């Protein structure tokens, strides 16, 4: 093993990406004594090897938890919206660490928005910590998966105990949602394995808040004297709270603060940020082809290097994994990059008058900026899900009111519809909506959209950057996906109406590509152990490996569970196997219990 700052020159396994899922795989491999090098295109925040990650290259790599610094995280993660989240020049964007440079290009020839983050932790730097399991029928009854739901359960359980994943606390906005759900006739769901309609608090990978933070209590501290979530609602801005806590004690269990420290602590994992993989290296093997290494480019110096290993894992996310595959000239039988699912989102908001709020939640405003960004949900297996999704005003204005495939609200007739306005809202009306921000509850609809071969990633050979032709993304819904989304938007409107909203708006969202799944699907491009069907020693361990959109449940729990499982298959196939199988004592959870 090399020390901090040096580059691991001879890893057993090289992994492309250190985003949402890769750290789960690296941790599991590291536990088996397998040396893993992760190449990450973006920066490493909160790490003493890279004290000013957006203005100086810093050191080369990090291989120790000693490098992780809560103080640096506090400095870098300001929780301001634009500073953290501007997709053009924010700290959390799809682009190089160097703030002086522009984002990396993608070609999207349609109305839409992509939200992915480069950096250690990947898009979980933005995520809301929502960790529901897949809906059972999406795995056992949809035709896409070569494995059973029961195969994933032990890995779900493992992650639920390590992050940990716990019920989100009720907060005023959650109670407003719950009341709307109850009045709409839904039952409360208390089981982890979801097959039926019902509402529930989100299972979240966010430490539960300190009991001192009760609404009816008398807390008047500075939130540095509590542990767990401080209910500051800054998940989207990186979620650095509580301020002053140790790096690993931050409440939101994104991969950066939860799984990366665990991986580094094995002593067998090294992470090299600012390293953009440009080619998977192969050689003739016993089969047709086998992977043996990766070529990558340092994003600060432009220097390219090659690293060789016994196995290669792609975990660059649903867009860049297929791009890298295609740019490496690896075989494509028609499904590489295809079958992309996106949860075909929609957004529905309700605005409430203060007297109604006083009655329902005992306060005169919703206060969307207080409490977990997404703490409550309604599951509708077969259709998808509806969740409270709240943001600071900038994202509210852009996501709720400014992106739509259904035109502008001023030209849309909503007579007979359950919403009052539909489409983009601009001008005086936008200002009116935004001036009601604190009396507004915003909901997201996650559609169970199904994989289709027309949807996905190809190369745009006309647009090249320093890493080769860029990815082109085409995605459009099937009419059945539109129907499911429409059903969810109607349920969301009814729920808001039952809760007492006096004005309801439906965005009719344009594709927002932030939940991305299944572009390198198991069963199509990968075998049931996560290894490529056409290239030996090449595995995929990010959300692209999922065989579908897991029913519309938030995907990261399943992505990470699958990454743990793939790590074990990799260790079995090319190393000495797994010394401590998950779970040691299987908890019974299956159809025949």
């Amino acid at each position, binding site marked *: 093993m090399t020390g901090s700052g040096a580059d691991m020159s001879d890893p057993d396994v090289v992994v492309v990406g250190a985003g949402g899922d890769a750290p789960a795989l690296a941790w599991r491999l590291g536990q088996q004594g397998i040396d893993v090098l992760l190449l990450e295109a973006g920066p490493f925040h909160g790490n003493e090897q890279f004290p000013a990650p957006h203005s100086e290259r810093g050191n080369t790599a990090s291989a120790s938890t000693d490098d992780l610094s809560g103080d640096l995280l506090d400095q870098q993660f300001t929780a301001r919206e634009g500073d953290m989240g501007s997709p*053009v020049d924010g700290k959390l964007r799809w682009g190089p660490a160097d703030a002086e440079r522009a984002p990396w290009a993608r070609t999207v020839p349609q109305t839409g928005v992509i939200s992915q983050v480069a950096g250690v932790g990947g898009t979980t730097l933005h995520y809301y910590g929502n960790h529901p399991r897949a809906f059972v029928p999406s795995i056992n009854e949809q035709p896409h998966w070569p494995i059973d739901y029961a195969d994933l359960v032990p890995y779900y359980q493992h992650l639920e105990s390590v992050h940990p994943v716990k019920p989100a606390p009720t907060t005023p906005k959650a109670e407003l949602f719950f009341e709307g759900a109850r009045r709409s006739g839904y039952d409360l769901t208390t089981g982890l394995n979801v097959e039926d309609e019902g509402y529930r608090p989100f299972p979240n990978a966010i430490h539960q808040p300190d009991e001192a933070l009760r609404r009816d209590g008398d807390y008047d501290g500075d939130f540095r004297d509590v542990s767990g979530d401080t209910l500051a609602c800054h998940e989207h801005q990186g979620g650095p709270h509580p301020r002053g806590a140790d790096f690993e004690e931050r409440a939101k269990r994104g991969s950066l603060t939860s799984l990366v420290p665990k991986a580094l602590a094995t002593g067998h994992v090294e992470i090299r940020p600012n390293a953009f993989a440009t080619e998977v290296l192969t050689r003739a093997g016993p089969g047709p082809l086998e992977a043996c290494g990766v070529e990558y480019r340092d994003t600060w110096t432009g220097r390219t290097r090659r690293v060789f290993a016994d196995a290669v894992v792609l975990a660059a996310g649903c867009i860049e994994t297929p791009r890298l595959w295609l740019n490496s000239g690896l075989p494509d039988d028609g499904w590489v990059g295809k079958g992309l699912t996106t949860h075909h989102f929609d957004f529905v908001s309700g605005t409430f008058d203060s007297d109604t709020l006083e009655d329902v939640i005992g306060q005169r405003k919703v206060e969307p900026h207080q409490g977990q960004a997404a703490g409550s949900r309604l599951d509708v297996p077969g259709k998808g899900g509806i969740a409270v999704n709240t943001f600071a005003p900038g994202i509210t204005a852009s996501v709720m009111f400014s992106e739509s495939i259904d035109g502008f609200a001023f030209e849309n007739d909503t007579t007979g519809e359950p919403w009052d306005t539909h489409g983009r809202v601009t001008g005086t009306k936008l200002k009116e909506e935004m001036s009601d921000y604190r009396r507004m509850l915003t909901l997201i609809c996650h559609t169970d959209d199904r994989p289709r071969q027309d949807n996905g990633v190809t190369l745009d050979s006309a647009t090249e950057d320093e890493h080769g032709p860029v990815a082109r993304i085409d995605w459009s819904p099937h009419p059945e996906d539109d129907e499911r989304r429409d059903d969810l938007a109607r349920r969301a409107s009814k729920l808001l109406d039952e809760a007492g909203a006096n004005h309801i708006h439906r965005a009719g969202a344009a594709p927002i590509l932030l939940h991305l799944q299944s572009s390198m699907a198991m069963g199509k491009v990968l075998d049931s152990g996560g290894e490529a069907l056409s290239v030996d020693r090449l595995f995929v361990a990010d959300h692209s490996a999922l065989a579908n959109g897991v029913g519309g449940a938030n995907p990261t729990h399943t992505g990470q569970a699958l990454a743990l499982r793939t790590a074990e298959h990799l260790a079995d196939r090319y190393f000495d196997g797994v010394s401590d199988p998950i779970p040691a004592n299987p908890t019974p959870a299956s159809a025949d219990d």
Partner: protein
Amino acid sequence: MSYARGTIAALVDAVVPETPAVGDDVQAAGALDIDLDETVETAFNELQEAPEGPIRSLGYETMPFAPLLALLLDVGALELILKREREAPLQSPDERFAGGPFSRLAREDRMRAIRLLEADGVVPGLDETYDAPIGIVAYLMQGALFITAMAAYSDWGDDSERPQGWEQADYPGPADGYAVHMGYEVDEFEENDYGADAEEGDAE
């Protein structure tokens, strides 16, 4: 004031206009009061690095998308005017606007021009005629509206301690926490059985 900047000024003014009639100083201010035209122009010019080739040899490090955005907005406006789909008379442009057709449209007509560029007009129609990713125009239009709204209501467009948009939304800005914990609707989730319903088909 450049052509690009002045045309983008007409865009941001349509999304978040000044509304003096509301008689409330906080709410009356619009995007131009925080120079959002400059923010959006810069954002568009910094969206993407210039690839090796002709654009770089002209001295650009990044793609000059802001003038392209302005040009497209005028193309959409021209189409709206020629098709007689305007709903309000043309106006003499505000002094901060450029002189092209987009700058002369009433606010909602500016949005109708965007709609033509994205979905209903001749530009998207080219998609079927030519094998080129014409839909990029729709993507840029979506980006323009998204960026304008996000910047108008955050520190992206106004880097002061209390940005105008946060003030208008009455958002207090980043906080260290809130004491709003109300207990748990579910104390612990349980490892429940599954599969039985589907197997026994008890729904019938």
